[in-house]
Every structure is written in C-alpha cells, then in structure tokens.
C-alpha cells in the first residue's frame, strides 16, 4: 500500500518543479530498534524520491554504518539527512508525515537551491555566527 495518495503525489510533483539541483536523502534505519517506523520511513522517502529525477536515496544502518552516522551527527532512527550540493545540516528524526511532510518537501527544495527564504537581515546575522548552533524542532504529524 502506498503512503502517498495520487493527490499527494500530484501536489508534491508541482512543488518539485522548483527543485534546482540534485538532492540526496540519506536514511538511517535500524530494524532492531524500530522496525516498523524504519520501514515506513524508507517507504515514504522512496515514494517522495520517485517524484523527481533529481532526488537520490541512500539507506544506511545506524549500527553498521557508524562512521557515517557519526559524521552526520545522527544518533536516532529512523532518521533522514537532506543533502543538497553539500550537507547543510538538515535532519529529520521520525517518520515525517502530516505537518512534517510539508517541512520535508520544503527542505528538499531549499537544499536543492541552496537559497534560504529568509530576510537579508537574518542572513547577515547567520553569516556572522562565530560558534555552532544546534536547533531542535519538536513537532507532531497533526
């Protein structure tokens, strides 16, 4: 059973007209920890990737691909890393459904362009940051 309805697919395809460059979605799974959620996450990401030929998918295992997980700073499953021409630091923990699904789609588009939709003042302040910033956004599907 597909997760995305025909209507979802059409809406995402429309959004994906704005994709500028290649995007890689790196999935971290670990069946022992959260089999059902990891399978659902993989399926969702694959269904999304099918809607644009600019999106590729790589599936890694948190327990086996430890070096990659460490390099990405990923320590939970299921996880998704959204990479554009480079790794911008966009991560999702958990299956991004409902409200988070539109966040995922927006993240893919922003990562593909490398151009955040922020005010010039915000961009200038962010460029001037002298130390690392780690933002966690807790969300729910509804």
């Amino acid at each position, binding site marked *: 059973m597909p997760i995305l309805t025909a209507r979802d697919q059409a809406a995402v395809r429309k959004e994906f007209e704005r994709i500028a460059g290649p995007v890689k979605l790196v999935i971290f799974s670990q069946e022992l920890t959260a089999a059902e959620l990891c399978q659902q996450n993989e399926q969702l990401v694959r269904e999304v990737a099918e809607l644009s030929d600019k999106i590729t998918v790589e599936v890694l295992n948190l327990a086996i691909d430890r070096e990659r997980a460490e390099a990405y700073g990923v320590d939970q499953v299921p996880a998704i890393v959204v990479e554009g021409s480079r790794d911008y630091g966009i991560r999702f*923990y958990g299956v*991004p459904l409902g409200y*988070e699904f539109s966040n995922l789609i927006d993240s893919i588009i922003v990562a593909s362009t490398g151009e955040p939709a922020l005010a010039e003042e915000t961009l200038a302040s962010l460029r001037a940051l002298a130390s690392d*910033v780690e*933002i966690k*956004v807790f969300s*729910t599907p509804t």
Partner: protein
Amino acid sequence: MAVASDRVRSTVIEATEFPELSRAYQVMGVPKVVINDRVQFEGAVPERDFLGAVLQAVETP
C-alpha cells in the same frame, strides 16, 4: 537557517516517536524549539524572534 550558515544544524524531531527525548526537553506543546540546549520556546514565532533566540543561544554567558 541551516542552509544559510555552515554553523547551523537543524533537526526536526517527531515528538511522539521519541518520548524520551521529548520528556528530556519537557515538550508540552508543539512546535517546540530548543537551541543549543540553552534557549527554548513553544509555538510559531516571527523570523526576527527566532533569530533573536539563536543569537541569545550563542551569547557567552
């Protein structure tokens, strides 16, 4: 913001799937934003306020 600066990493966490993390960060309502484990707020805020929270989080205490 993550795209705008190499200094910024942003993780969206599905609160119900990670109850331990949600408990640790005392998530009562969503969206809840936690920056550098120092500054936090609940609900959607204007971009200017979000930036203010980021800058507050990197200020030396």
